[in-house]
């Protein structure tokens, strides 16, 4: 297991280096000259040149790249032109909100998607399977920002049963920081009412994000359960007279989940991308919302830093998924 962890971490190094090169190259081919932007419109050419020299933008590219690496390694991602704070501080503050939303969505997608897929497989080609099929293809086709707006229209504005936006209502104090996840932190602080308050705020955004993921998980579960059901051990168990329920939920499902678990890692990428528009619509103060407003205000340092942060989160989650998979399926651990 340890060897597997080390090998996966070693594989992450070229990926991260590649990410850094990509982000660096992209910052350097910005059509607008960052020095000119910083200097403002009234600046003389000499002033722009001076700023360029202080930023090191007049040095050869490889020198600039090394400088950039040193900066990133020391956690210096520049300052946001909009919030006037170090980007790394903004990121640290907003990260937990995105993680809370992603975890809630993941939980929802797994809890709904796996049973849906298993049921569809068992009732293969029946009417229930057809309904689930239409639901899953439809779930993948809905644009998440549209879904977000429709849910707001129905549940917040028309029915008025769920909050419109934010992690909590304006004026409600944040819980003491422990995990950064509001629902859990309120619970740990012993404030049940506020924990429920935060949970209600989580419902619409996480349902929006979870929808395409639920569909994906259901589809993968369905096809791998179908495959497992054709295996010899299932026929044997059937012949021996195992209760159908036990057989399906205990043996067949466990043998089918490997492909689904791989998908969970990829789905995390979907959550991170989806969070940009979903957080913006729901006013959820996370990384996605930060990236959205940074793009709207042409604030490049946060754009680059957030991209990098998202790339790192994605890579780490996928390593974790590999490890979970090795736990579920020992053959995976041997292969690698």
């Amino acid at each position, binding site marked *: 297991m340890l060897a597997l962890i080390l090998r996966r971490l070693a594989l992450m190094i*070229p*990926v991260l280096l*590649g*990410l850094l090169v*990509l*982000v660096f190259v*992209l*910052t350097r*081919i*910005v*059509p607008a000259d960052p020095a000119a932007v910083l200097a403002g419109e009234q600046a003389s050419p000499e002033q722009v040149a001076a700023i360029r020299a202080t930023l090191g933008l007049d040095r050869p590219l490889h020198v600039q790249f090394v400088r950039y690496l040193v900066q990133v390694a020391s956690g210096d991602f520049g300052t946001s032109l909009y919030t006037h704070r170090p980007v790394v501080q903004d990121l640290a503050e907003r990260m937990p909100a995105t993680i809370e939303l992603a975890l809630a969505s993941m939980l929802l997608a797994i809890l709904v998607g796996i049973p849906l897929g298993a049921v569809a497989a068992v009732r*293969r*080609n029946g009417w229930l399977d057809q309904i689930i099929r239409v639901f899953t*293809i*439809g779930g*993948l*086709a*809905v*644009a*998440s*920002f*549209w879904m977000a*707006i*429709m849910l*707001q*229209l129905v549940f917040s*504005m028309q029915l008025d049963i769920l909050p419109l936006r934010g992690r909590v209502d304006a004026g409600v104090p944040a819980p003491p920081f422990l995990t950064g996840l509001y629902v859990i932190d309120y619970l740990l602080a012993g404030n049940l009412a506020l924990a429920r308050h935060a949970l209600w705020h989580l419902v619409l955004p996480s349902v929006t994000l979870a929808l395409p993921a639920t569909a994906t998980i259901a589809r993968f579960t369905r*096809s791998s359960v*179908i*495959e497992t059901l054709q295996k010899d051990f299932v026929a044997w168990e059937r012949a021996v007279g195992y209760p159908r329920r036990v057989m399906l939920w205990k043996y067949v499902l466990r043998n089918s989940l490997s492909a689904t678990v791989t998908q969970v890692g990829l789905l995390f*990428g*979907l959550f*991170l*991308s*989806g969070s*940009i*528009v979903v957080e*913006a*619509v729901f006013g959820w103060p996370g990384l996605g919302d930060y*990236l*959205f407003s940074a*793009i*709207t205000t042409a604030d*490049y340092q946060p*754009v*680059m830093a957030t*991209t990098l942060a*998202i*790339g790192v989160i*994605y*890579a780490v989650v996928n390593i974790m998924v590999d490890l979970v998979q090795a736990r579920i399926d020992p053959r995976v651990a041997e292969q690698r």
Partner: protein
Amino acid sequence: MSAAPAPTGNGAEAAAIAEDSPAPRRGGLARLVGLFNANWTSWAGLAMLVVIVLMAIFAPLLAPYDPLDQSILNRLKPPSADFLMGTDAFGRDVLSRVLYGARISLIVAIAAIGLAMVAGGTIGLVSGYVGGRFDVAMMQAMDVLMSFPSLILGLVIVALLGPELRNLIVAISLTAVPPFARIARAPTLAVKERAFVEAGRALGFSHARIIFVHILPNVMSEVVVMGTLWLATAVRVEASLSFIGLGVKPPTPTWGGMMRDAFENILDAPWIAIYPGLAILALVFALNLLGDGLRDATDPKLRGE
């Protein structure tokens, strides 16, 4: 002469798949057409897609109004006999804008995925054919590109290069290159060991000829099936980018952009948001239905469903 060895290759493959089939197998594309009959959902998806494409092409004939025509008198009118889908904050007809909006979605998706198919397919074919260190390096590079969630990569590129049609296409196609490279590479590894490739080499064919004339047809169906599914992704990514404000510049109607504009008046005029969203849903649904049916038909594990 150039076409002569190809049937040999496919003949060999056919023999491996179905030994009792007396008829010679047709090329990759013809096989793909045959796959259509395996699943009715492919036909349903294709029918929906054709309708949407026709609506986009004939938008000038179908649209009741000019999609750019503003009218102060007709601001935020709810759907009625005059304006079937209502009007937006500038008094523009939503139906006409939805019809014209299909054009940007289709152009961006088709151009981006077409580019990605050619670039990714070539990388996969050449990389798989050459093998060795070159192959390892290429696949590492693809892994790096794939380590970004696709919307994020597209977003960063467009944010930095500027929101123009060309940049949108380039950005979206770049995110789709690695999966095409991977899907083209896998069968290439198997096919290049076959006797007909060796025969081609013995006859002194150039590498380029072997790759593109003899190996390519064997890889084509997988690539095309994935292309349909990625078209759906491209439509969604383009819509998201437009919604974020990185799409083709206004006043050109795009579905994502229309929803962005709708946001300000969402309480008074929800129809401005509802219809472009339904349009995205219909197009992506059609493409997924099409691609999904084709994939099930090509995947031997799910065959016979």
